[in-house]
């Protein structure tokens, strides 16, 4: 397992963008989950869920904990909407101490706006650079790219995602080498995204 992991993280900066993967809907087919766990590495990886894109719904948090609960992981989640009885304390310190950060689906526009308001975008970039693996599905996949095809505004459209690239071209190069400069999820099941993709300027 370690060999396979090393093959995709030559410089330890890792992003796993899932086209569509809800923990609660994939029972019986856990290949992506297992692959993600391998990226996290270690005998008892620390994995933190960021359910921001859906407004921190209890169902998404429960599905995450249910799927990974029995697998020797140290799980946590970080809410940016609700006061938690067991808070994680300092956000930066908590996120830096993780092996993998998983971002759930929802509204990409809201996700990025809220992260920026809490300065979480900078913290996540710093985590990525220091070797914390980043993963996510749908909005949680597109957020790592420069652009994404999103339905957040109510209609399908191309929207700027992460602005990590601005002023830091090295990271962009690394990100785009692993996939593409823009991301759209999940494409075949939602034809409107494919249309937005092909009609986008510069596509």
């Amino acid at each position, binding site marked *: 397992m370690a060999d396979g992991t090393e093959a995709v993280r030559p410089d330890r900066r890792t992003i796993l963008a899932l086209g569509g993967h809800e923990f609660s809907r994939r029972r019986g087919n856990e290949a992506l989950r297992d692959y993600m766990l391998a990226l996290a590495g270690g005998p008892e990886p620390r994995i933190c869920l960021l359910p921001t894109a859906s*407004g921190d719904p209890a169902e998404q948090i429960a599905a995450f904990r249910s799927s990974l609960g029995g697998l020797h992981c140290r799980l946590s989640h970080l809410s940016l*909407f609700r006061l938690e009885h067991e808070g994680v304390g300092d*956000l930066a310190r908590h996120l830096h101490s993780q092996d993998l950060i998983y971002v759930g689906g*929802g*509204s990409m*526009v*809201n996700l990025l706006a809220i992260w920026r*308001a*809490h300065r979480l975008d900078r913290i996540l970039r710093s985590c990525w650079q220091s070797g914390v693996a980043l993963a996510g599905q749908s909005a949680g996949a597109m957020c790592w790219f420069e652009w994404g095809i999103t339905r957040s*505004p109510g209609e399908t459209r191309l929207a700027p995602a992460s602005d990590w690239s601005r002023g830091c071209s090295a990271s962009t190069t690394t990100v785009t080498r692993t996939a593409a400069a823009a991301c759209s999820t999940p494409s075949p099941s939602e034809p409107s995204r494919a249309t937005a993709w092909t009609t986008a300027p510069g596509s």
Partner: protein
Amino acid sequence: MRQIVSFGGGGFSMESGNPLLDEFVLGLTARERPKVCFLPSASGDADHYIVRFYRHFAARCEASHLSLFRRERAPAEPREHLLSQDLIYVGGGSVTSLIGVWRAHGIDEILREAWERGVILCGLSAGSLCWFREGVSTFHGPPQRIEGLGLLPWSNTVHYSSELARRQALFGWLREGMAPAYAADDGAALHFVGEELAQVVASRSHARGYRVELRHGHVVTTKLATRYLGDPSCVPLIEPVAALAEA
């Protein structure tokens, strides 16, 4: 007339069985069946919060809500919808997340326009802090100084008497030049007409509003005359202006 009612804490989501603050804001609309739109953005559009809003308001209002997480289920034209309301009611939660989401969708500009056109704005906790130039939030533990929409040129602090850390943080920031603050206890509401405070009302007999400001280098807290809404015969309560010692 531009009106904002800021609850220190209270209303349907915090005071089950005590409808006094909600009745007060509905009364300001002077409509028999006012149009009221709920903005639950600060809670991440939490379903249970939206359900509770309808449970309390649907029977006597034209109640609606605007979701910014599920825009496909929201009114197609948020600007037209918000401008057509009599009252916009903002729920509690994280004020930082609230302002971030509003700016991403242009709701901040629409709310300013609604206010200028006479739509009454109200809210509790994060839904109070958001209207001011700055507010004190304790959402992530240690108090944070948060920039609001700035419709009111003051600072704001909520849950005032119940949270010592907020008061202490406010005093420090006032010394650093933060704008004079209006604060409210749980159960008290600050009613602004234009940028100025018009009155303080309360759903609990002991709840109060406060003005907190720097005078000659010292933080001075002035307890404001507060009208208890539970006693119809109660005329506006005039208390001696008490300059309280710093905590």
